[in-house]
C-alpha cells in the first residue's frame, strides 16, 4: 500500500497532464466536422494498428498450444485411419486373407512433447512428457507428426519416458526402399546428426540417389519415412550395398512427437523368442 501511494505520488502530475490534454484534444476534435473526421480517422487507424499488434502477439504466444492441439488431432486421425484400414482390409494382402492368417496390427497413437534432447553424444536420448500413467511402455515407436522416424521408447517413469533416437549407436531398425521393397539395417555411425547408414542392402536392390527409405519394423506401421539416399557404394566384401541416408527428421529441433503403440507387439516378440 505504501509503495502504491509512493508510485501514485510520483506519477500523479503525468496522470493529470494526460487527463487535461485528453479533454483539450476532445474539445478540439469535436469542435468542427473537419477536426472530428480527421482525428477520428487517425485514432481509428492507430487503434486498429494497436489491436492488430496485440492480436499478433496473442497468436504468437498461443502457437505452442495450437501445436499441441494439432499434434493430438494428427494422432487421433492416424488412429481413425488405421482402424478404417483394418476394417476395410485395404492393406492386407489378399493371399494372407485367403489363408486366414491374422496379420493386421492395431496401432494406437499418443501425442507427446519433447522435454529434452541430446545430439552431441554417441548415445543420445530424448525425454518426452508422457509416461506409464499415459499408457506409454518400452518398445513403442516414436515418430514426428509428419510421419518421420524418431526412435523408440526404452524406459518409462509414471510421467516421463526416455526415447532412444535414431542418433544413437545402439539403435537398430529395418529400413526398406520404397520403390522396390528391398530391406536393410539402419544404423548411426556418429559421423553426422543428419545422416545414417543403411547396411546389408541386397546387390539386386538397385538403389538410386534420392530414393526414399521407410521403416520396416513390428513397432511401427508402414509409411514411416527414415530418409532419402544421399550416396551409396558396395561394402568391403562387395556382397551388399551400403547407402548413406539423409534423415527426414531433424532430431535437434524436435518439439512435438507421436508415440505409436502396436498392441500386438508383445505377441510378436514372444513368438520370435520362442523361435530363437
Amino acid at each position, binding site marked *: 500500500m505504501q509503495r502504491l501511494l509512493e508510485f501514485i505520488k510520483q506519477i500523479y502530475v503525468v496522470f493529470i497532464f494526460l487527463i487535461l490534454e485528453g*479533454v*483539450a*484534444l476532445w474539445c*478540439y476534435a469535436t469542435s468542427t466536422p473537419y477536426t472530428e473526421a480527421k*482525428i477520428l480517422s487517425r485514432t481509428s487507424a492507430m487503434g486498429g494498428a494497436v489491436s492488430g499488434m496485440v492480436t499478433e502477439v496473442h497468436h504468437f504466444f498461443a502457437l505452442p498450444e495450437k501445436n499441441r492441439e494439432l499434434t493430438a488431432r494428427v494422432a487421433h486421425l492416424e488412429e481413425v485411419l488405421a482402424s478404417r484400414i483394418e476394417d476395410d482390409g485395404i492393406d492386407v494382402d489378399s493371399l494372407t486373407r485367403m489363408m486366414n492368417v491374422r496379420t493386421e496390427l492395431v496401432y494406437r497413437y499418443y501425442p507427446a512433447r519433447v522435454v529434452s534432447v541430446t545430439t552431441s553424444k554417441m548415445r543420445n536420448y530424448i525425454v518426452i512428457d508422457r509416461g506409464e500413467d499415459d499408457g506409454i511402455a518400452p518398445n513403442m515407436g516414436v515418430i514426428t507428426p509428419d510421419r518421420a522416424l524418431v526412435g523408440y521408447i526404452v524406459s518409462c517413469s509414471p510421467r516421463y519416458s526416455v526415447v532412444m533416437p535414431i542418433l544413437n549407436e545402439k539403435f537398430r531398425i529395418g529400413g526398406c526402399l520404397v520403390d522396390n521393397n528391398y530391406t536393410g539395417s539402419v544404423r548411426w555411425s556418429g559421423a553426422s546428426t543428419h545422416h545414417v547408414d543403411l547396411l546389408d542392402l541386397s546387390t539386386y536392390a538397385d538403389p538410386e540417389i534420392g530414393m526414399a527409405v521407410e521403416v520396416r519394423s513390428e513397432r511401427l506401421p508402414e509409411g514411416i519415412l527414415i530418409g532419402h539416399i544421399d550416396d551409396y557404394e558396395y561394402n568391403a566384401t562387395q556382397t551388399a550395398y551400403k547407402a548413406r541416408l539423409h534423415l527426414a527428421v531433424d532430431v535437434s529441433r524436435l518439439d512435438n512427437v507421436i508415440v505409436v503403440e502396436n498392441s500386438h507387439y508383445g505377441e510378436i516378440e514372444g513368438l520370435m523368442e520362442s523361435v530363437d
Partner: protein
Amino acid sequence: MYKYISYVWLMLLVLVAQIFLLDNISIHLWLRPMIFPLVVLLLPMEWRTLWVMLIALLTGVVMDLSLGGAGLYVASLLPVAMLRSTLMYLATNRVVEASDQTSLLSRLSLKQLMLYLTLAMLVHHALFFFLETLSLAHFLRLMATIIFSTLLSMVVAWPIVRLFVGKVLGR
C-alpha cells in the same frame, strides 16, 4: 510579492498583445507570431510542474475563449509546460534543482536563454500547427510555417524577455 505581481503583469501584457495585436496582423500565410507561451516559459523553473501546468491551462483557456481555439491552444501549451525542464536541460545542459535559491532563468547567459526559448517555442509551434492542420499532406509547407513562425515569434518576444529578465529577475 513584487515578483509575483510582475508575473501577473507579464501574463496580461502577453495575452493582450497576442489577442488584440499579433493575431490581427496578417503578414504572410507562413508567418504567425505567437508569444503567449512566454507566460509559461518564463515562470520560475523551480516551481512544481503541477502549478506550471495549471497556469498553462489557464492561459490556454483564455486564448481558446478569446480566439475560438476550442481546445487547440490548451492542447499545444500543456505539453510545453510538462516538458519545460527537459527542454531546459536539452538547450542548456542545466538541471533544475528544487532547492535553488536564485532563479535559474536569471543565471542563464543570453545565448542559453535564447536557445531554451527557441527550442520551447519550436516544440509549441510544431504541436500547434500540426494540430491545426491535422495532416502531413503538405509537409514542407507545414515545416516552413513552423520554422518561420518560431523565428518571428522569437523576434517579437525577445524584447519582452530581455525587459522581464532584466527588470524583474534582476540579471
